């Protein structure tokens, strides 16, 4: 069942692109299988999947996106934009990468079509923690970048695979330009045929096995971290900031692909955002509980999670931990600040009288920790796009500070290094304008021959340094476990 040329003609008026979709039975194909296929064929891969906690069970949501071998890749580092197309790269100075991306999306705008998944093509990847420096050029922080983190890395997909669990189908999607529609449509049919063949014939064995080849070392030792927390408390006491998020990391030498770690995460304790991203310089396995921006037909959502407690070993203990978390003044203060910050960020890009909150103080659960959450909503102004929202919200308040700009400066003065992928905002902006992004937390990245799990906690005046140090360790535990398991599994596979 494929979109007809007639349907394309009807949709095309006023748009740069339209999606041609072919639906085929899912057969035995799963997200894991499609991801393996993608990674075997290309080093540039994007997988976005979601679960929802219904209260009774964790359920995978209807659609999962798998994209690879993008038509274009946009990356920007320290004011230099690089655009890659196949093997060709051009680089040029760029002060406002968001405007470049907005231009790309505007030129390829596609209509909403009935029965389509939220993402049918568009931009996918991450805006790094340091991306704020383009919106706020006066920010004062260290420029050194020994790990060579990019400030943003986004694929432009004109074709995608989307798994539809409800219909048990795979949607093969090719977006075509609306000029020369008939000719482009015929080419698309051919491409769709190739994509369908890939499902059965493309190899799945091109994924390098993952191996951790040394032990995990912390970025900051306990005594250093205590000093860092004390410095943060001093800054808060002086009124320099209301709160800041400090982080620690564990890093181990590693090789291969993080895809198997992603598969382990999916099996063990899947959380809201289950994503995988692979580019030339880094791979990421994401199990993030936190949406940073969701934009659906002009309606904007954010779900700040701040305030953390450990999961209980029994149901009774779990509920007790939840009650204590919701009664903890420090956690409530931390959380309330971020709700007002989210409202403020929306305030710059939403219509008057459209901003509201719901599910105030609803606890969200992950594998090892639980967080206090609230959902903030608003209607995006008609003259604003997802990129304007990105400019206002990156890095997310839950990994930076309140107030944000000076909070970032204080964090940098204490941590003295770039966070890069940690605390980045990862997700997609569809050609329709819709967007879906999560915060890069509870996640791992593999870069420069090392795998890193970085995690943080909000420091407020009442913070106890040893407890903050432990909170970071707790948050990293689930990911470390998944990485060891993936390493063991791939080793076992290799030895067969």
């Amino acid at each position: 069942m494929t979109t007809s040329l007639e349907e394309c003609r009807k949709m095309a008026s006023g748009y740069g692109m339209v999606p041609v979709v072919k639906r085929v039975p899912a057969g035995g194909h799963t997200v894991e299988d499609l991801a393996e296929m993608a990674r075997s064929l290309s080093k540039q891969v994007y997988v976005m999947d979601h679960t929802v906690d219904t209260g009774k069970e964790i359920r995978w949501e209807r659609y999962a996106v798998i994209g690879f071998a993008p038509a274009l890749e946009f990356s920007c580092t320290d004011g230099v934009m690089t655009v890659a197309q196949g093997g060709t790269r051009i680089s040029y100075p760029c002060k406002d990468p968001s405007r470049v991306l907005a231009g790309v999306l505007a030129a390829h705008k596609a209509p909403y079509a009935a029965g389509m998944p939220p993402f049918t093509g568009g931009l996918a990847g991450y805006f790094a923690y340091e991306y704020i420096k383009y919106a706020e050029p006066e920010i004062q922080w260290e420029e050194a970048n020994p790990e060579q983190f990019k400030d943003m890395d986004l694929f432009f997909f004109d074709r995608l695979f989307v798994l539809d669990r409800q219909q048990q189908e795979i949607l093969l999607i090719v977006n075509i330009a609306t000029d020369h529609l008939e000719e482009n449509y015929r080419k698309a049919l051919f491409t769709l045929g190739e994509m369908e063949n890939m499902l059965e014939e493309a190899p799945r064995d091109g994924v390098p096995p993952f191996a951790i080849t040394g032990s995990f070392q912390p970025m900051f030792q306990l005594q250093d971290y205590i000093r860092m927390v004390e410095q943060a408390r001093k800054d808060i006491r002086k009124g320099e900031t209301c709160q800041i998020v400090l982080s620690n990391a564990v890093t181990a030498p590693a090789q291969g692909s993080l895809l198997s770690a992603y598969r382990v995460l999916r099996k063990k304790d899947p959380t809201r955002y289950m994503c995988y991203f692979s580019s030339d310089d880094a791979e990421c396995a994401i199990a993030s509980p936190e949406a940073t921006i969701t934009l659906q037909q002009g309606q904007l959502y954010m779900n700040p999670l701040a305030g953390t407690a450990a999961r209980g070993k029994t149901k009774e203990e779990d509920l007790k931990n939840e009650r204590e978390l919701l009664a903890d003044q420090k956690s409530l203060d931390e959380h309330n600040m971020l709700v007002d910050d989210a409202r403020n960020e929306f305030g710059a890009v939403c219509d008057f009288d459209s901003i509201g909150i719901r599910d105030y103080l609803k606890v969200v659960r992950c594998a090892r920790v639980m967080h206090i959450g609230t959902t903030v909503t608003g209607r995006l102004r008609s003259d604003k796009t997802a990129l304007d929202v990105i400019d206002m919200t990156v890095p997310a308040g839950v990994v930076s500070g309140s107030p944000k700009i000076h909070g970032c400066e204080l964090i940098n003065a204490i941590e003295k290094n770039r966070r890069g992928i940690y605390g980045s905002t990862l997700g997609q902006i569809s050609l329709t304008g819709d967007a879906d992004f999560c915060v890069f937390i509870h996640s791992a990245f593999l870069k420069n021959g090392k795998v890193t799990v970085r995690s943080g906690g909000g420091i407020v005046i009442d913070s106890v340094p040893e407890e903050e140090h432990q909170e970071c360790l707790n948050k990293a535990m689930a990911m470390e476990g998944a990485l060891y398991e993936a390493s063991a599994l791939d080793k076992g596979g290799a030895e067969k």
Partner: protein
Amino acid sequence: MIALIDNYDGCVFNLFQLIGHYRRDIRIIRNDRMTVAELQALQPDHIVISGGGSQPEATGMVREMIRTLTGQVPILGICLGYRALLSAYGASMSYLDEIMQGRASQISLATDCPLFKGLPGEIQGMRYHSMTVPEKEIPEGFRIIARASDGEVMGVQAGNSSTFGIQFHPESFLTPEGSRIMKNFLDLD
């Protein structure tokens, strides 16, 4: 036109939205991007001064603006804006014993004050501050119009003028009566 002075890193867009329920002609002006004379030339009919992450000494043209325009244009300073108002007339700041960051307090109001017209005698108000103006520092001629349950001064009026300052945040989601306060302010001329 409402001039909304942005003191950097405060929740200026929450104020923008709060005002925007009543008036759409709002101009956001960063505190160091315009002189007082340039602002005067724009002829704002109301001025609102946002909170921010710095000290009164570092609020650009704010304090001079307050001294120049008090009596000519209604002015409302919030949090840092409140402290800048008092600082403009000589008050010194000090640190709170217990920092209030993201904490709502019960605040009693002088309901005969035009800023609090129609409000109950006590409301909930959100606080984000480490610094305060101790009561003894409040300059002569200022009337205290609001006080928190911990005793801290939460609001002042400069004499009988339409210049007001409030320490708490009417634009926060935990100040339910905040919109009413802004309406009262915008109704003044």
